């Protein structure tokens, strides 16, 4: 089994996790204000149900889901709603958000049991509770979890796959969750098994987290068919298609979802969160975030109220160093740079990385030398070389029609290896955006 469980291609960036891998998760003190965007998940934005001046307790519903593929927003602190306005959003735009002034000396005690006990619920009840608790995927895409847990009847699910890879450098969110809350992971699996009617689960963890593998194996309940599977350390081992390939040996067909091969993939922290909301009765109002990088003075793993502004978070971590230069939400391979310290953290923010100037010297770009390294890196076997040349010529339609642009998951492996420093994945993101903008018009 040695070094066999993995996918083909991919890259080996430096892991850089030592800054926070050993740090216990701490709780961030409440900031004076939190900003809660209505759109923190994939799907339709939530509809606000409060008005300026309303007083809310921590965990109160303040915006309700608008349809099935949508998720509610809950107050992440007790306090007063200031306004519904535009706020900077992690995606770089301004989006509607509720601003909430946190009550300074509140004990932040939520109302009791906003989420019912799971033991008394049937499948439908559990599913409804998951949606009402605002649970979304914490692995980055923030896809509403209840949608994934209710596959159409013609797609039987045979396995739950818990994604504990955390293959992005720097991040230790899932790692620490698995080490410190292994019981929650197992409980989450138990609840998901009940919802999906599945009896088999696999937890895939990269070999560089032996303590997490150990903790999960130690706490594994005897009555569940759960396997903890150590995987090769390689980026992007955590991408769901790659994970499924590594664990089951099957390829998710192009354009299809994991459920098409009978698998539901859920991030380890998401699974723990499912358990947590039922355990505590408190909806999803906070999450674990790794704050790290050479540009922040005190790297940490923190429990952060959703909606905390970036500036407040950094201040709590000792502030920026003098040579801090770039701030990224998410991992360094796929994460998005932030321009505005007023941007709030959302449910989908897995980490905050502050890069120092010496780490992000802009490197000169050279013409493509057709070395083919990008083809050898791309985990979905695209031809980034050709895609890049077409993108530079603006031939987006050809990229999609002939060269499978839509299969690109923007993992960035191609850009990572390119010796000529061609911003390949950025070109692909731009091409996809252009095609998306053009589609509805046509």
């Amino acid at each position: 089994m040695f070094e066999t469980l993995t996918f083909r291609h991919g890259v080996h960036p430096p892991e850089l996790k030592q800054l926070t891998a050993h740090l216990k998760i701490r709780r961030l003190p409440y900031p004076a204000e939190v900003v809660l965007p209505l759109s923190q998940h994939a799907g339709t934005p939530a509809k606000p149900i409060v008005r300026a001046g309303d007083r809310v307790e921590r965990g109160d519903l303040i915006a309700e889901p608008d349809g099935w593929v949508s998720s509610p927003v809950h107050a992440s602190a007790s306090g007063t709603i200031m306004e519904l306005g535009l706020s900077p959003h992690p995606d770089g735009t301004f989006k509607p958000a509720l601003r909430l002034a946190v009550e300074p000396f509140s004990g932040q005690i939520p109302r009791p049991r906003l989420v019912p006990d799971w033991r008394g619920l049937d499948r439908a009840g559990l599913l409804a509770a998951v949606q009402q608790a605002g649970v979304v995927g914490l692995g980055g895409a923030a896809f509403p979890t209840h949608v994934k847990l209710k596959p159409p009847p013609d797609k039987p699910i045979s396995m739950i796959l818990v994604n504990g890879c955390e293959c992005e450098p720097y991040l230790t969110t899932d790692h620490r969750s698995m080490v410190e809350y292994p019981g929650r992971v197992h409980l989450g699996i138990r609840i998901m098994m009940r919802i999906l009617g599945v009896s088999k689960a696999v937890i895939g963890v990269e070999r560089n987290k032996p303590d997490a593998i150990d903790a999960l194996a130690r706490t594994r309940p005897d009555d569940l068919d759960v396997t903890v599977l150590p995987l090769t350390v390689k980026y992007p081992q955590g991408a769901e298609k790659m994970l499924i390939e590594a664990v089951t040996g099957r390829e998710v067909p192009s354009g299809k979802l994991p459920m098409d091969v009978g698998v539901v993939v859920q991030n380890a922290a998401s699974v723990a969160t499912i358990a947590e909301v039922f355990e505590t009765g408190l909806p999803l109002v906070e999450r674990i975030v790794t704050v790290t990088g050479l540009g922040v003075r005190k790297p940490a793993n923190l429990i952060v109220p959703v909606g905390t502004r970036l500036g407040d978070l950094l201040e709590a971590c000792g502030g920026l160093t003098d040579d801090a230069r770039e701030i990224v939400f998410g991992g360094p391979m796929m994460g998005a740079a932030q321009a505005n310290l007023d941007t709030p953290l959302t449910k989908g923010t897995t980490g905050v990385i502050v890069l120092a100037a010496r780490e992000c010297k802009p490197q000169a770009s050279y013409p493509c030398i057709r070395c083919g390294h990008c083809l050898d890196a791309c985990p979905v076997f695209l031809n980034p070389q050709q895609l890049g040349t077409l993108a530079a010529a603006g031939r987006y339609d050809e990229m999609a029609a002939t060269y499978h642009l839509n299969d690109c998951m923007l993992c960035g492996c191609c850009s990572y290896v390119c010796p000529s420093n061609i911003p390949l994945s950025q070109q692909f993101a731009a091409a996809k955006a252009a095609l998306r903008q053009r589609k509805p018009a046509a």
Partner: protein
Amino acid sequence: MPDVSAFVVSAAILGGVGTVFAAAIAVARTKLYVWEDPRIDAVAGLLPGNNCGACGLAGCRAFAEQLVAGAIQPANCTVASPDMREDIAGYLGVDVGAATPRVARLLCAGGSDVAPHRADYVGLQTCRAAAAVAGGGKACTWGCLGLADCREACDFDAIYMNDVGLPVVIPERCTACNDCVEACPKDLFTLMPTDQHLLVQCRNLLDGEAATGVCAVACNGCGRCAADGAPNLISIESGLAVIDYSRNAAASPDAIRRCPTGAIVWVDGAQQLGRARLATVLEGAGR
């Protein structure tokens, strides 16, 4: 050795070969001919051949087919010069037709002088790519990034980047082909009939100082233009003045007089988007 017979033989051979093949062609053309309206080729030859699609058809030849079929009029080709249209109309013996000319208008006046960047964007120098990276680092996330995707998209050289990094459309060259509209990741272009003069050169949805904090010429939603303009012509929607062009007939330059930032303008010909324009606006606003 050549004698008279050589003459006879060769004349006979060539005459014979010619005759045989002429006969064969004569037979073939009646038996095998496939007819196609030759006017289509002729008209296609008279069209500009840009295949830009501004007419809404799949290229110039498709347009020619429709023209010959009488389904459309020559004027629907916005690229052809009036002379060219007349040539086609004359050739087909039809009317040129009329179409209200439209031009592309930019909905942003936030050049580098008035709308600063919050962060330094480094990377692929196209608007499309920059827009996906923290909005391109510009403080106003609605604003023009100035990396000229629109100019590159324009096949007619109708756009140039001015002194403050904003694209300016040359109305005489613009054929309203829609390419720049599609190219701009910030959706800053719109095609407007030239008889519409009132224009809000801003798409920033913030209001008050939040708006002017990111761009000195942003519309801050103060409502003065709505008050000064004809009734129901202008309204304020989420911090932005919106013009109802169905009431265009009632529009007059009065609406723009008191605008504190100069976001709303009266355009005639090319848009004024440079430093010079800013000076007059701010002077007029008494600032």
